[in-house]
């Protein structure tokens, strides 16, 4: 089973990348689960035609008890991707990080992996590793590898560095390690060179170079990924190639 956590600066395109990657995996015949780990709960919306799944935290708030089946907190989207969103507490209250851990414990109790038997699990994680909760997806038993999404912008690279440092700090805990960088272009000057310099400094490969594309925005407006919209597009092929690379390396 390929279990990946996708981290990166807020707004850098993690959810877009994750959803397109999920869609690409399904096109390659794989069974996929995508878990959005962000209180905004918008990770999977473009796999669901714009009709979001009820986040786990919302379910707990509404029913005041834990769900008894996965079906109560998950929805199948494009290509059969099982979409789950942790959601979070009422903005300004509670603890969003704790919400992620609670969701993971719940999914474990519901034996999600044992019953659904996915080939690929993708964790789309909010911005930085700001506290214990946001490191939960990389703990033992969850993601085994991390992909960092960044552009050549200074603050995106700064966040990427913070993530790498946080992950290195957990080296003796058996947590996931960083597999590589996904360059999501914002068309800044010397973008490739800047990201290459960061990657080299940290000994990481650049696994994909994703060009800025109006097609992504166009299809997102219709509640879908570019893979769903038009698989033949050049941008779609970038995600397809990335999915193939990741599968080949893991021999899934």
């Amino acid at each position, binding site marked *: 089973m390929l279990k990946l956590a996708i981290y990166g600066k807020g707004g850098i395109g993690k959810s877009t990348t994750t959803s397109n990657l999920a869609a690409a995996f399904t096109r390659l015949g794989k069974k996929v689960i995508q878990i959005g780990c962000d209180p905004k709960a918008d990770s999977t919306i473009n796999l669901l035609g714009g009709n979001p799944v009820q986040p786990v935290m919302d379910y707990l708030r509404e029913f*005041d*008890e834990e769900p008894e089946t996965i079906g109560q907190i998950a929805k199948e989207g494009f290509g059969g991707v099982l979409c789950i969103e942790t959601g979070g507490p009422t903005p300004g209250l509670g*603890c969003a*990080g*704790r919400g992620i*851990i609670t969701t993971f*414990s719940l999914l474990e109790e519901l034996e999600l992996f044992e019953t659904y038997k996915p080939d690929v699990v993708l964790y789309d994680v909010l911005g930085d590793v700001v*506290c*214990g*909760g946001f*490191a*939960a997806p990389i*703990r*033992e038993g969850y993601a085994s590898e991390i992909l960092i999404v960044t552009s050549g912008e200074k603050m995106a690279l700064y966040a990427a560095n913070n993530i790498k440092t946080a992950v290195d700090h*957990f080296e*003796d*805990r*058996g*947590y996931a390690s960083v597999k590589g960088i996904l360059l999501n272009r914002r068309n800044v000057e010397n973008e490739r060179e800047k990201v290459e310099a960061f990657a080299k400094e940290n000994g990481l490969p650049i696994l994909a170079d994703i060009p800025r594309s109006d097609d992504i925005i166009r299809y997102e407006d219709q509640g879908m990924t570019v893979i769903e919209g038009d698989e033949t597009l050049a941008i779609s092929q970038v995600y397809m190639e990335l999915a193939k690379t990741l599968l080949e390396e893991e021999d899934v």
Partner: protein
Amino acid sequence: MKQVAGLISTYSSDEFGICSALYELGGMVVMHDASGCNSTYTTHDEPRWYDMDSMIYISAISEMEAVMGDDDKLIHDLIETGTELKPEFIAVVGAPIPYMIGTDLSAIASITEQETGIPCFGFAANGMHHYTKGISMALLAIADRFCTKKWKKTDEISVNLLGVTPLDFSLNGSVDSIKSWILQEGMTVNSCFAMGSSLEEIKMAGRAHVNLVLSYGGLAAAKLLEQRFGIPYVVGVPYGRQYADQLASQLRQAAWTGKSVVSYQKETKRAHSDYAIIGESIACASLATAIEMECDVKIKVLTPVDTEHVLLRKQDRKTPDEDDLIEQLQSVQGVIADPMYQALWSKDSGFYTLPHEAFSGRMYDAVNPDLINRSIR
């Protein structure tokens, strides 16, 4: 209202269930909690505290350690104390504060084990679940880690007792009575998880022919031992004379056939329950069955703590909240329960006290009867 107890007490927590299950096994158990929180356990939930030594500690987590997520002090203390005391194992037990800040107790245990070479466990308790869950996770972890060797079976039928702690069985002689009953029935006790057996004895669990699951806390370990060694399990507590005889017969049968069974699962002819009994599901369903076999009544079990559907009979109910209990008690003429449940009983008569350590602590120890293998009537 859900998750509200306005009239009654609450059960001992998962944190204390773990401590209770591990108390006699020679391990170092560390509650990762604020200083003082261990007094709840030692004062109310652990009747062995003043008479039997055990390495139960509290980490005394401070406000700043919690805010900063500083695990290093705990890891340092675990390594230093573990190296000095050389316990059989080290268990780090979660509590509300580490739960809220998402402390990774498994990772802390893993680092401590790497440094000390002592087997370490991280238990993700949070102080908000019931003791039943704590006992279950502790005994499962012990069985998983230490019961790995396959042993030659003894000639006579030998039995492991699973799910035994003072939280369910008090120190009123019940556990000794269960062991005597096993011997009286021509079988032997191989080990007891976890009162009166050393860790070395527990390691030899694979030698037994059959496991007797005496509370919910023993079920997960029983399933693991069944899977690992093919040892079947029988669920039930030998209350009353007739029911104890039936249970002994089922133990022998399971040892012979290799098939696990919940001993009290039988349909009764009467539709309406006359009485209710409140508490842990296996103990209560066993007692209810024992009484039904000796008296002409029907009794339903109301269980506010963890259980599984298979452990309940047709008329039994899960009653997680106070309101559920109040509703269920409306329709019966009597109830058997811990004295602290009297607050929910509005009738003038019909309340029969049966103290439960996990609910009222040591308050009623002096009047807690041993009902093992003796006539209920």
